[in-house]
């Protein structure tokens, strides 16, 4: 009895001791927070090298896109210590900087000789700077992303379809150069029978809950001449947001939704778009570039069957695309900022960035994307580069959330529910955004 008691006590002590030792060993583990998507898996793989080099373990907190903003903005607003590093959405930068959620990185960059000139300019402005176009850095550009298009190369190259298309529209069926051409292609494929299946024109963003329809509509509106504000007078939106050109752009987006999307695609975003393309439902597919590596590898629609094209031009020849992507920041509430900064330093390294691209992440480092071998490194690499050269982004103001909610409502009410006119929607948007900026004391 006595010996068994001793044994039990010994075992218990050993367990307590081993737990304590393991806690000490993992005391410096870093937690990185991001969205749950393909690039996150690539980052897990990449980060193993960091652990090998430094002995610092990495833990990951990935949340699906639909809850990503809710979850992590709550975490930051409550000054939570869950995330040491966060890859936050580009639009968060203003709020995160002004509310002190992110550590300012200027001194660190100077000390470690990390220059923002080494990164693609659009990504520096989009992911790192607040206020925009000033040298105040809150993140290192981590994942370049932009809205572009994929298309079914195999369908486009069918001789009978090429012939029919040429007869109908007078130009060769191929990746569209303008939005009008894109709509013609979408109309051509809508409800067409291909390989015994009914297919549809295009999958576009229509999601209501988070940011979907805004990302999709803006992707078109920019090239039609939409501007957020008077370039000479900040926050003056009348005549810019609701200009005649913007109205035409929004009318086009609705027309595209009405004519050429699959049935029931009224709440479609990144995941639904990928599903529609992968299942062979659509001829063209609007989505962020991060989806392309996965689609390229897909057995049914990837390989030679898929092609990529940059967002087409608007009626006046303007060509822009909606910026996606994120920068990586150190959370100011973290107790492990030193280790987190080590990770940023490691991540900025050229070799790490090259590996990041090879694993499926989108590097923003000039040395990687301007490498002569880069355009041929993947079938979508050139489209990605061309798209990144024409990006525009949504408001990155601290009040980006109510600004986004207003556009989600106005666009969905008009495009999907068919309520009112495009002019009503954009006039309403000016009213809503004005109210937000007035509440902020900026107007």
């Amino acid at each position, binding site marked *: 009895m006595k010996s068994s008691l001793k044994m039990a006590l010994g075992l218990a002590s050993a367990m307590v001791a081993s737990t304590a030792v393991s806690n000490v060993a993992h005391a410096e583990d870093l937690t990185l927070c991001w969205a749950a998507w393909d690039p996150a898996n690539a980052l897990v793989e990449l980060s193993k090298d960091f652990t090998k080099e430094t002995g610092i373990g990495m833990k990951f907190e990935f949340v699906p896109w639909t809850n990503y*903003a*809710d979850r992590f*903005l*709550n975490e930051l*607003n409550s*000054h939570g210590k869950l995330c040491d590093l966060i890859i936050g959405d580009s639009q968060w930068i203003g*709020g995160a900087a002004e*509310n*002190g959620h992110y550590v300012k990185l200027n001194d660190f960059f100077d000390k470690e000789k990390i220059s923002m000139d080494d990164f693609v300019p659009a990504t520096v402005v989009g992911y790192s700077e607040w206020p925009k176009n000033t040298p105040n850095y809150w993140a290192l550009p981590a994942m370049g992303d932009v809205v572009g298009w994929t298309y079914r190369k195999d369908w486009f190259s069918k001789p009978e379809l090429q012939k029919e298309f040429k007869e109908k529209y007078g130009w060769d069926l191929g990746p569209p150069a303008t939005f009008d051409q894109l709509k013609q292609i979408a109309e051509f494929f809508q409800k067409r029978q291909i390989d015994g299946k*009914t297919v549809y024109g295009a999958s576009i963003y229509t*999601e*209501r*809950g988070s940011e979907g329809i805004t990302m999709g509509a803006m992707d078109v509106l920019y090239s039609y001449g939409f501007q957020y504000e008077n370039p000479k007078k900040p926050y003056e939106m009348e005549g810019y947001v609701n200009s005649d050109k913007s109205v035409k752009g929004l009318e086009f987006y609705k027309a595209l939704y009405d004519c050429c999307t*699959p*049935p*029931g*695609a*009224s*709440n479609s975003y990144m995941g639904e778009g990928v599903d529609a393309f992968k299942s062979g*439902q659509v001829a063209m597919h609007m989505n962020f570039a991060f989806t392309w590596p996965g689609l390229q590898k897909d057995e049914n629609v990837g390989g030679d069957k898929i092609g990529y094209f940059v967002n087409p031009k608007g009626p006046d020849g303007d060509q822009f695309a909606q910026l996606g992507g994120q920068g990586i920041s150190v959370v100011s509430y973290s107790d492990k900022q030193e280790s987190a900064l080590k990770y940023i330093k490691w991540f900025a390294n050229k070799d790490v960035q090259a590996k990041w691209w090879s694993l499926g992440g989108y590097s923003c480092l000039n040395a990687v994307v301007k490498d002569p071998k880069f355009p041929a490194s993947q079938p979508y690499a050139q489209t990605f580069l061309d798209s990144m050269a024409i990006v525009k982004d949504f408001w990155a103001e*601290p009040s980006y*959330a*109510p600004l*986004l*909610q207003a556009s989600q*409502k106005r666009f*969905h*009410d*008009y495009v*999907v*529910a*068919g*309520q009112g006119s495009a002019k009503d929607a954009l006039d309403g948007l000016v009213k809503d955004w004005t109210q937000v900026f007035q*509440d902020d004391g900026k107007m």
Partner: protein
Amino acid sequence: MLNRTAENVARATPEPLARKVRGISDKGLAWLFISPTILLLLAINIFPLFWAIYLSFTNYRANRPNEVVKNLGFANYQRILGDQDIWIAMQTTAHFVFWTILLQTLIGFTLAWLIDRKFRGHAFWTTLILVPMMLSPAVVGNFWRFLYEPQIGLFAYAISFVSGIPPTNIQMLSNVSLAPWSIIIVDTWMWTPYVMLICLAGLRSIPEYIYEAAEVDRASNWRQFWSITLPMALPFIMLAVLFRGIENFKMFDMVNLLTGGGPGSTTEVASITLKRQAFESWRTGYSSAFAIILFVAVFGLANIYVKALNKVKQR
């Protein structure tokens, strides 16, 4: 025996503690025992309520902790009551509450009346009918989203089979006119069994001798239903309506899963608007005012209803 146990317990109580509790009255002891619960209730229920009332008079935003909080007086309330979108959300909520309650009460009572006949296999049918109620709303929402899917959904195919309309034209969740009904159908499917259970309890509580007396008086089945069954089951029906009314007034999960408030704002009920203002737009003061308005509305209506229910019970 009991005294001896009490004595043993008293003797075993450590002296310092015994000294403290000595002389506490029964009432004091009762308060001592329930005080943890009361404190918990105050902390997680009453305090947040008063805090929300305080916030509703301010411009506080939870995502701007460093910003100076200004007192706005009744400005948030004025803005909400003058906001057309809020009134549209309230109308959508009222439409949803009215139709779900009407359908659930009619179908639920009918099912209860049929089950009460105690036909062969009635226990099996009761269990089967109760299944939807036992499922998680998250599961039900996702499950129906697939059923409503116009290209692969069984619902669209079933309607197409009956009506001859192509299934791809039956877009329950995308069509502005059909989307509100798609949610009403799912809520009715899920919660009618609940109403049925309460009604069944009401029907089973009616003493058999009343029907026997009615039989002696040669009252027809129809007469028995209107003069005995319905009046005596009415308090139970009203209770079911109250429960479902309160639940559906704050309906969130099903709407969020099925339509997310869309298409456009067609199915945006008050709770969805509230969530968007509070946790997406981060207008904490504004959304607190909206929450208080909703609370007062539900509380007021429920009070009036409970008074009516008591009157019916007293008859």
